[in-house]
């Protein structure tokens, strides 16, 4: 009987293959591999960008050349040859589609397989989808409805053309191109992404969502997302991704910048399920992302929620700069690693304004031979009177060969701050499994129940539409072992 040997069941983790692995055959427009000034000019020209953006890219590139790849994370990253990557790939669509019928049927099928059929989403769920495939926005929906309210939700390249002043004002204001190695790289070569602007006093009526996919082989994807919430506004933004199966590793270095003004609130949710590599640790996505939000205004609020199940290597720290007085930062995370996956993820909460508050809840689940680390910083600057932070990071270990690590940093420069950090690491409680067994629940189901309960605190923070997918992902990721 299977449940007689829980170890066997836990080891079964590896038996599950990536369900979203398929390649869509669409003609893609790829520029030669390698990175130099000409390539950057080429990208910029192809996208028909203004001079100031090209300058921004070139400055970033010049700075990137002076940097070295960081090695401080608890990750083993194989050597990456940045000259062997193609920095631009766009699906060849000659005319922008006006209706769903005009969208390439192959592409439509891909989205259908992923469960994001555009028409269904448009009709039923009321979500505006900005579908991004290989760096260029293919289609944006619900634009008109949002436009009535003055909400801008479009691809980054469109924003550059239509709202240059807004883009110019906010681009790089939170994540400077000098920020880190990958931020500099992204700033130099970013292809496309999403742009959101919520005007003063507007509560965005629907959840904004975008799906990223990596499609053409051997192309890195360099997304750039910029969200600006003006005074008294509210927006909930969803980001989810699945990528097809590949043998060669793919690099993804995205930037997400969020600016939150007075009394505004932004909720950013991510479900990340990119190809994690096969059972032997071959292939998989390298996910090196810089995400940061600036709570610029008083009483502003930024909340990050992430469910990380994919990618071979994850290097990601969605952060909050709490500059405005009474601003609030939140970070809720579930990170699941299996087989040979590696994750070094966490957050930074920088308290600058007075009476700022932050909450961090991180749940790590490691199985197989994976390594899962939480790394976080809570910094309270001298002027941040009455700052308050609560951090909890728990790790759950499902096999004897995996690793769970926590590296929290606390730098407190103000005596009125109250900062708490708690971390626990343990394996699934055998008493709980026994209790379930006694009541006729198989070990597999019991472990599933326990893991779900363990992650619930974070799952509850996800918007409804996402929670379903996230729960499915959690199950798929650990299927055979615990689900």
């Amino acid at each position, binding site marked *: 009987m299977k449940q007689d040997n829980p170890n066997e069941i836990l080891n079964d983790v590896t038996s599950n293959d990536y369900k979203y692995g398929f390649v869509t055959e669409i003609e893609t427009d790829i520029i030669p591999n390698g990175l130099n000034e000409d390539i950057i000019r080429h990208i910029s020209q192809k996208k028909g960008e203004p001079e100031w953006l090209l300058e921004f890219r070139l400055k970033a590139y010049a700075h990137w050349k002076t940097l070295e790849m960081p090695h401080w994370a608890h990750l083993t990253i194989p050597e990456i040859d940045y000259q062997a990557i193609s920095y631009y790939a766009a699906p060849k669509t000659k005319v922008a589609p006006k209706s769903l019928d005009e969208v390439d049927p192959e592409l439509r099928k891909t989205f259908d397989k992923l469960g994001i059929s555009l028409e269904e989403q448009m009709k039923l769920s009321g979500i505006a989808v900005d579908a991004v495939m290989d760096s260029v926005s293919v289609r944006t929906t619900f634009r008109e409805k949002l436009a009535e309210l003055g909400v801008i939700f479009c691809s980054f390249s469109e924003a550059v053309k239509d709202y240059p002043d807004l883009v110019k004002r906010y681009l790089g204001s939170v994540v400077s191109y000098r920020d880190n190695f990958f931020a500099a790289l992204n700033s130099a070569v970013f292809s496309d992404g999403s742009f959101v602007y919520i005007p003063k006093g507007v509560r965005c009526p629907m959840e904004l969502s975008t799906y990223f996919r990596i499609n053409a082989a051997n192309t890195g994807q360099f997304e750039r997302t910029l969200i600006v919430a003006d005074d008294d506004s509210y927006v909930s933004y969803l980001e989810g991704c699945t990528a097809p199966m590949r043998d060669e590793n793919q690099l993804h270095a995205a930037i997400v910048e969020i600016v939150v003004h007075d009394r505004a609130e932004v909720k950013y949710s991510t479900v990340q399920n990119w190809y994690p590599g096969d059972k032997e640790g071959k292939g998989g996505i390298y996910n090196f992302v810089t995400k940061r939000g600036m709570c610029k205004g008083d009483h502003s609020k930024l909340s990050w929620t992430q469910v990380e199940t994919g990618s071979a290597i994850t290097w990601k720290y969605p952060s909050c700069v709490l500059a405005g007085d009474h601003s609030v930062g939140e970070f809720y995370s579930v990170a699941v690693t299996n087989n040979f996956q590696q994750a070094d993820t966490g957050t930074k909460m920088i308290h600058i304004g007075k009476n700022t508050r932050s909450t961090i809840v991180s749940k790590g689940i490691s199985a197989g031979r994976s390594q899962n680390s939480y790394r976080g910083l809570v910094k309270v600057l001298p002027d941040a009177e009455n700052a308050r932070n609560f951090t909890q990071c728990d790790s759950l*270990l499902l096999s*004897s*060969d995996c690793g769970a690590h926590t590296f929290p940093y*606390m730098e407190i420069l103000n005596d009125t*701050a109250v900062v*708490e950090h708690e971390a626990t690491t*343990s394996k699934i409680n055998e008493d709980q499994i026994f209790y379930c067994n006694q009541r006729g629940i198989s070990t597999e189901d019991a472990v599933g129940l326990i893991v779900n309960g363990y992650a619930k605190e974070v799952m509850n923070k996800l918007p409804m539409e996402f929670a379903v997918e996230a729960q499915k992902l959690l199950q798929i990721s650990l299927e055979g072992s615990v689900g």
Partner: protein
Amino acid sequence: MNAVQQYIELYKSQKNLIDTHSSEVMNGLRDEAVALLESRGLPSLKDEEHRRTDIESIYAPDYGLNLGRIEIEVNPYEVFRCDVPNLSTLLYFVVNDSFYKSVQPAAAKLPDGVLVGSLREMSVKYPGLVSRYYGRIADMKRDGTVALNTAFAQDGFFLYVPDGMVLEKPIQLVNILQGNVDFMVNRRLLIVVGKGAQAKLLVCDHSDDAAVKFLSSQVCEIFVDDDAVFDYYDMEESSENTTKVASVFVRQGARSNVLVNGIVLHNGVTRSNYYTEFAGEHAELSLCGMAIVDKEQSVDTYTFIDHAVSHCHSNELFKYVLNDSARGSFAGRILVRHGAQKTEAYQSNKNLCASPLAKMYTKPQLEIYADDVKCSHGATVGQLDQNALFYMRSRGIPEAEARMLLMFAFTNDVIEQVRLDALKDRLRQLVEKRFRGELAKCSGCRACR
């Protein structure tokens, strides 16, 4: 010439002098230590583990070293009388980095086979025994300060408790810093507790002259064999001009029980490293410490607990109280290696920031490669409970007194870990005095009179 080169030059020109006044066992490691120092240098602020204490600039000033071992006339009893009431200890002194022979408790008090005394002398008398342990766990590659200490250490303290021996009386070692020029000492402690043996060691650090700058480098190696029990208390109580860079290395055998308690009551800059390692199963470690720092003082602790084998238990507790412009830093790393199942490791770091300019950096770390473990860490930074303060004041306790009581209660957890009642009482008294702003030195010593 940077700080390191200055020491390397000194070593090369004075090698004979250093060797003459030490022992063969200690001289044996010097060349390797200097080579390591030359290739790796001292830790810099860029090193993740040394980001809060600038070791290079600590070693940069031109300190005097007593390489020629010139005897300093001192009556340690006059400088310091730190006897703990109701606790008769066997009292030994190390003045600067030389074992002080003139004043020693009668050897007759020691049971047969127990060796206590000068590390240099013991390593001449029992070279086989000392060389089996000296420098074996003090990893010079890990930290340039350990290499530098190994290169220059000429003497220190040696304690050997043979198998099965239970030492009833605690041993007390008083380190005294004395000199009239800026001075650097390289002290070495070597402690070996045999199978099933039991001992307690209390080490107190004092400096005599508050006007002289001291740099005190200490490396302590503690070997605790199977089934042995050992307590190590380290109390730092010197002057604001004293900088202490200390590393404690512990290796524990199976079923052993070790308590390490480091208390910083008064010192300028303190950097303490604790490296402990479980070599046998079912061993238990309690590692704790506290620091009361004010003015411009700084205290920086790094701990590394290596759970290399299964079924071991470690408990870590560090508490800081920071006043004025004091700076506190704590980095605690717990490593549970692959296969070290049934490990239990708990860590807690709690800090009280009692003034607007005080700074605290804390960095607890768990690195776990085994699944059947129970590990946790917690870290807090906060202030005194305003409600508790108000409660006390509403009952007629003046604010200053109420604050002191609360701070005292805060640190009491660490004192509670002490496994000697008389020492516990004594520590409570010293801590209370410290909070009252008095130097904690006992009333009997010269500085207080």
